[in-house]
């Protein structure tokens, strides 16, 4: 059928036209190809049809005309044709490339290829495979299931632990192209599907929210029989963030995400991988809303703890450095006893004897024997008061009572040993007696402290019993003016016995006797003399009674005999010399304050007062009458001091007619 020589002019025309135009369209090429195909004897339908189409209108001269018309048409249409067509010549297809083969469950697998250029012609790709240890070539059983350019091997066609040699062939009319063969073992190309049913739930653990993610393995993968072992991985991020936080979950199908920075919407994705395979794609995003919470890390606690510990250490160190100051401030030192001689250490040791022995002053109390004599009262001043004095007494009783009370409550305060103390040195023995009269001391003990008092009280003679019926001896200062004014009445009431000795009282105040009638006689006397006096208490009474008048008389008598200038204030001191066998107390005068143990020399009488305020005393030699009222020829000049003092005292005592003698002033009488 084919006339080759006639075809050639057409071909020549077409080639000529193409050369003229400068470009060959695809159709022309196809025509050429078809012609070439005709030439080469390749029989394809397309080419034949093209051939027949070509040849039909060309017959004879008519054919020539038609041919020319067609040529013109072609020439006209060429630009259009060229515009339409691409511009490449047909060629065999390009080489396809097998991109990947994957098995989702180790039971089937799919291979994909990428076709090369198709060479301008429709290309068909086919996949051929060859199993290991077999030369039979098989073609892909399923090109469609997996999509375009894919080949799906179902279960029947899939064998594991067998190498598949796979080749893809791309064929087109011009040629075919073989891809590079690929050795595939199914077990090495497992890539499962993503996990399914990913659920995210917000849960709470001790107030802190956390995410619980759970999923299921892909449906196709058979994990229940152990055929495939999958490991999972998930990733989470906040909605507004860009970076994911990934966590490996191992083979478990549930995972807790605990470290949530803050609240908000969280997105979670999961993927899986077989033990020796490829990671699956990420699953679809699951979202969860986490409530906002204040998140305090462990690190915050640790920081706070460290900070506080550091501060505490610094404070402790500072306190340690200043511990002495603090100790002084918080716990001030307890003042210890500041007693001289008191030893705290002894107190701690607990031996009281030692403590108190340390306290004891060696000289206290003074031993009576050493000072005994000093404390003995040598003189007793006897004062016989007048009625007026009695009244004064009584008026003064309360005062004396007060004094007495003072004295009774007085303590042996060591600080108050001065003469001007009002406290009486109470004789505890004579306390039952209503009154007590301190016994004075010699002038030498005027300044003696009260520590001598005990001795004094000891020396106090209880010669006068309580049962002295009558009479009171009131030791008043001899300067009392009322001395001469006493009457017999009061005399009776008073102490009758008048001691021969008179003594000035120095450290004591005088107590008025009670007007109770109870008479007593506190006498401080010499140690010797009182005894005999004591022994003769009954005679005392008699003595007293008898000598009342004498005494009073003596007092009266004496009064004028005293210094003329001091007539109203004259007082004298008498000394008990002795008691004669007739129970007569022989008194002898003694000058107050200026006692001198000179029995021979007794100055009891004041002769006169000099211009220099000197009392001139007379010495009285007579002892028989016992009263210093006798004149004495000898006069001795007393020391001016004594006299002076006496003068002074007298001056001072002048206004104190009604008052008792203050011991203070009395003290001044003695030098």
């Amino acid at each position: 059928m084919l006339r080759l020589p006639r075809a050639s002019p057409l071909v020549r025309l077409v080639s000529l036209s193409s050369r003229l135009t400068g470009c060959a369209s695809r159709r022309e090429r196809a025509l050429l190809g078809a012609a070439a195909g005709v030439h080469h004897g390749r029989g394809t339908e397309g080419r034949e049809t093209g051939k027949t189409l070509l040849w039909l209108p060309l017959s004879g001269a008519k054919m020539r005309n038609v041919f020319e018309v067609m040529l013109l048409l072609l020439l006209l249409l060429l630009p259009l044709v060229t515009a339409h067509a691409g511009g490449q010549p047909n060629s065999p297809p390009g080489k396809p490339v097998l991109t990947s083969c994957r098995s989702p469950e180790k039971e089937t697998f799919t291979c994909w290829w990428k076709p090369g250029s198709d060479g301008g012609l429709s290309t068909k790709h086919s996949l051929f495979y060859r199993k290991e240890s077999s030369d039979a070539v098989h073609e892909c059983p399923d090109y469609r299931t997996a999509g375009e350019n894919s080949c799906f091997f179902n279960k029947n066609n899939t064998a594991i632990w067998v190498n598949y040699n796979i080749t893809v062939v791309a064929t087109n009319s011009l040629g075919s192209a073989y891809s590079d063969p690929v050795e595939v073992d199914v077990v090495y190309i497992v890539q499962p599907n993503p996990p399914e049913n990913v659920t995210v739930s917000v849960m709470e653990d001790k107030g802190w929210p956390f995410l619980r993610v759970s999923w299921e393995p892909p449906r196709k993968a058979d994990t229940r029989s152990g055929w495939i072992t999958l490991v999972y991985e998930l990733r989470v991020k906040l909605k507004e963030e860009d970076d994911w936080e990934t966590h490996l979950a191992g083979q478990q199908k549930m995972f807790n995400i605990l470290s949530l920075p803050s609240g908000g919407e969280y997105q979670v994705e999961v993927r899986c991988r077989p033990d020796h395979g490829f990671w699956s794609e990420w699953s679809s995003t699951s979202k969860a809303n986490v409530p906002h919470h204040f998140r305090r890390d462990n690190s915050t606690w640790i920081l706070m703890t460290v900070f506080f510990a550091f501060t505490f250490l610094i404070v402790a160190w500072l306190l340690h450095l200043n511990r002495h100051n603090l100790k002084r401030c918080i716990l001030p030192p307890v003042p210890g006893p500041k007693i001289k001689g008191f030893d705290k250490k002894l107190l701690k040791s607990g031996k009281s004897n030692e403590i108190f022995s340390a306290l004891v002053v060696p000289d206290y109390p003074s031993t009576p024997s050493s000072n005994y004599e000093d404390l003995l009262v040598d003189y007793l001043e006897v004062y016989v008061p007048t009625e007026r004095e009695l009244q004064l007494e009584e008026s003064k009783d309360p005062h004396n009572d007060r004094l007495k009370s003072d004295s009774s409550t007085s303590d042996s305060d060591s600080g108050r040993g001065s003469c001007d103390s009002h406290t009486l040195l109470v004789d505890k023995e004579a306390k039952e007696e209503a009154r007590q009269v301190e016994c004075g001391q010699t002038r030498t003990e005027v300044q003696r402290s009260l520590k001598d008092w005990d001795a004094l009280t000891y020396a106090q003679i209880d010669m006068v019993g309580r049962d002295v019926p009558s009479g009171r001896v009131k030791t008043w200062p001899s300067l009392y003016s009322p001395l001469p004014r006493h009457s017999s009445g009061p005399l009776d009431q008073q102490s009758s016995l008048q001691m021969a000795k008179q003594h000035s009282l120095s450290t004591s105040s005088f107590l008025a006797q009670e007007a109770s009638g109870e008479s007593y006689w506190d006498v401080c006397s010499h140690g010797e003399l009182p005894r005999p006096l004591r022994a003769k208490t009954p005679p005392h009474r008699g003595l007293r009674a008898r000598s009342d008048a004498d005494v009073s008389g003596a007092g009266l008598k004496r009064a004028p005999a005293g210094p003329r200038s001091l007539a109203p204030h004259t007082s004298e001191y008498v000394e008990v010399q002795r008691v004669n066998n007739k129970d007569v107390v022989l008194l002898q005068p003694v000058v107050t304050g200026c006692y001198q143990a000179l029995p021979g020399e007794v100055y009891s009488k004041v002769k006169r007062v000099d211009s220099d305020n000197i009392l001139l005393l007379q010495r009285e030699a007579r002892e028989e009458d016992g009263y210093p009222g006798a004149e004495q020829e000898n006069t001795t000049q007393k020391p001016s001091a004594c006299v002076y003092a006496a003068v002074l005292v007298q001056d001072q005592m002048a206004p104190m007619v009604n008052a008792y003698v203050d011991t203070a002033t009395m003290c001044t009488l003695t030098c």
Partner: protein
Amino acid sequence: MGRRKLQRRDKDAKTNGQDSAEEMARHTGTFGSKLLPTVLYMVAACSAIPITDLLDRASQRSDQLHSLSTTLTQDLDSHLPLTVRLTLPRPSVCHTASLQTPNDKEQALQVPESDLLSLARSLLQAWEDPLVFLSTSANFLPHPAQNAISNKIQELRDHSKSLGDGLNILSGKMGPGARTISMLPYTGGNDVGQDTISQLINLNFLLSCFRRDSHKIDSFLKILRCRATGLPQMC
């Protein structure tokens, strides 16, 4: 006569002693031969580890083995150009190909457990000698990473040894079928190849065979592990 009696008595005593000693020896001998396994049995029974744990350990070991072999093959392939690898003829059959192993999942799941273990043990046993050959030939390997490869091969040997010991213990617990081992002698010989390329190709092939077999072992053990737990959701 007394002396003789004495002698006889002595002799008798001696013989008696000897007899008793012999009896003692016999008794101890039998006793000793039975004692050791008894003690071992008791020790094994007292310190018996559950089979699930044993399988777990074995599967972990086999997983490591396979991973090692995979990295090794990749290291070796990196040096060998692909074109060369593919064009030149290569042996296509591993020496363990004669062992019938399941080809797909259904077949594998139908194999009884003891048989699976037996297969695993056989495969492992089959690679004992080739690994020795591999390690020796790796010393002369014309490869840039020859030292690393040699070390890894040594690791392979250690792992396979310990796995084999574990499987031996396991086989004692899984039934009589587990104890059978199919012998798969290595027929590759000691000739690696004359030139570098052939050497590399041969070694590559050998390692690929080992990679596959190690994967088989791993798969079998994991199937066994999953079955032993009894809880499908735990697999």
